[in-house]
């Protein structure tokens, strides 16, 4: 009797446990994508300025700082259990965590190099560095860890 009750209780609770975990993963994935979208926005904004299509050069440092803040958060975007659901992140992130954190490390280095170039205030230098930053961070990480989104 006691056992049956326990089993019943378990059966009743288990789905909610499952559901709350799913809910958490879903929230994390949504947040992760939103951060990536924010990163993309700052990146594109800098690109507009350095290509001479937006006159206010002072804005660059604002976007560079924002990118710095967002990049400092990169590893916390991929907690265990956030590999399922509506995500385009590849399972290699969780299968080989040391390799992934090396990639995060390299991405941050690429950002620091870009930041130093942007501090020069020269549009041409910044533009060149922005391309290298795109390849050395966004490109580098997406190559191994991001799937093509389904349209």
């Amino acid at each position, binding site marked *: 009797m006691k056992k049956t009750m326990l089993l019943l209780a378990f059966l009743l609770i288990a789905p909610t446990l499952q559901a709350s975990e799913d809910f958490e993963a879903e929230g994390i994935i949504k947040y992760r994508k939103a951060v990536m979208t924010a990163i993309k926005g700052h*990146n594109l904004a800098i690109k507009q300025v350095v290509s001479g299509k937006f006159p206010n050069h002072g804005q660059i440092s604002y976007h560079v700082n924002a990118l710095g803040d967002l990049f400092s958060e990169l590893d916390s975007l991929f907690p265990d259990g956030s590999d399922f659901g509506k995500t385009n992140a590849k399972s290699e992130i969780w299968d080989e965590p040391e390799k992934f954190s090396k990639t995060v490390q390299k991405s941050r280095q690429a950002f620091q190099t870009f930041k130093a170039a942007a501090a020069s205030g020269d549009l041409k230098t910044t533009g060149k560095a922005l391309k290298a930053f795109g390849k050395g961070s966004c490109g580098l990480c*997406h*190559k191994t860890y991001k799937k093509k989104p389904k349209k």
Partner: protein
Amino acid sequence: MTGGRAGVSRFARSVLAGLSLWLFAQPALATQQDTLARGQRIFILANCFSCHTDSENDGQPLAGGRELKTPFGVFVTPNITPDPSSGIGDWTEQQFLLALGEGLSPTGEHYFPSFPYTAYQSMTRRDMRDLYAYLMSRQPVVQDNPPHRLQWFVSRYLLGGWKAVNRWLNPRLTAEQQADRGYYLRAALGHCQECHTPRNMLGMLDRERDLQGNEMLEAPDLTPRNQQGIADWSDDELEEFLRDGLYPDGDYVGGHMADVVEHSTQHWSEQDMAALIASLRAIP
């Protein structure tokens, strides 16, 4: 006095001899350098580097060891540096042409089409020769080839039949097609169809649906049928993608295409890039 004159004329003669030697040697040197420079361009256009280098594990250039995961199993790429024992250093030019042009090894074995000779077989002889010269000028690396890890039903012995059927379905480019630079770049050297064209159950390209996308490889449809694809991009945006990996919407390229951009298309000359884009635009 006479001795002096003889000395002068001997000097003059040796200068003349030296000069003519130099004159003869000069064009030979220049063509050798031209060949290597051309070979390097072919090497980049055909992206030999990315499959034959285990970049992810800091492998030596062209020493192989990169794992290609496919439904047929895991292929491990071989060493194609000029090391004579573990690489292809003891291959003759003829043997190299046979590998690229026929998918045959020096001992007469069939290669798996995970080595895209199905595209490279349409390269011109001259491009193959220059590529051979370039590869032979690279740094030799001693690194033995690990075996592939294939599914039980996959065997080299079946490849003869496969190649015969495939050659019938997907014949080599004609001389006319080779002369169309943009088409030659994407179909023979750049081998875009190897990922972007759907395949039949036997893994052969479906020519009727050239470049219409391969879902399993996540490679999108590059034809105007795909309205959310490059049909919607400007030529500048397409070039920016192929050079920097940047999508028009600000996202960055991922997966195998990131290798293509990193080791191949970003380095293409202006003319070749323009020819490729024109050729993609010409798809109905």
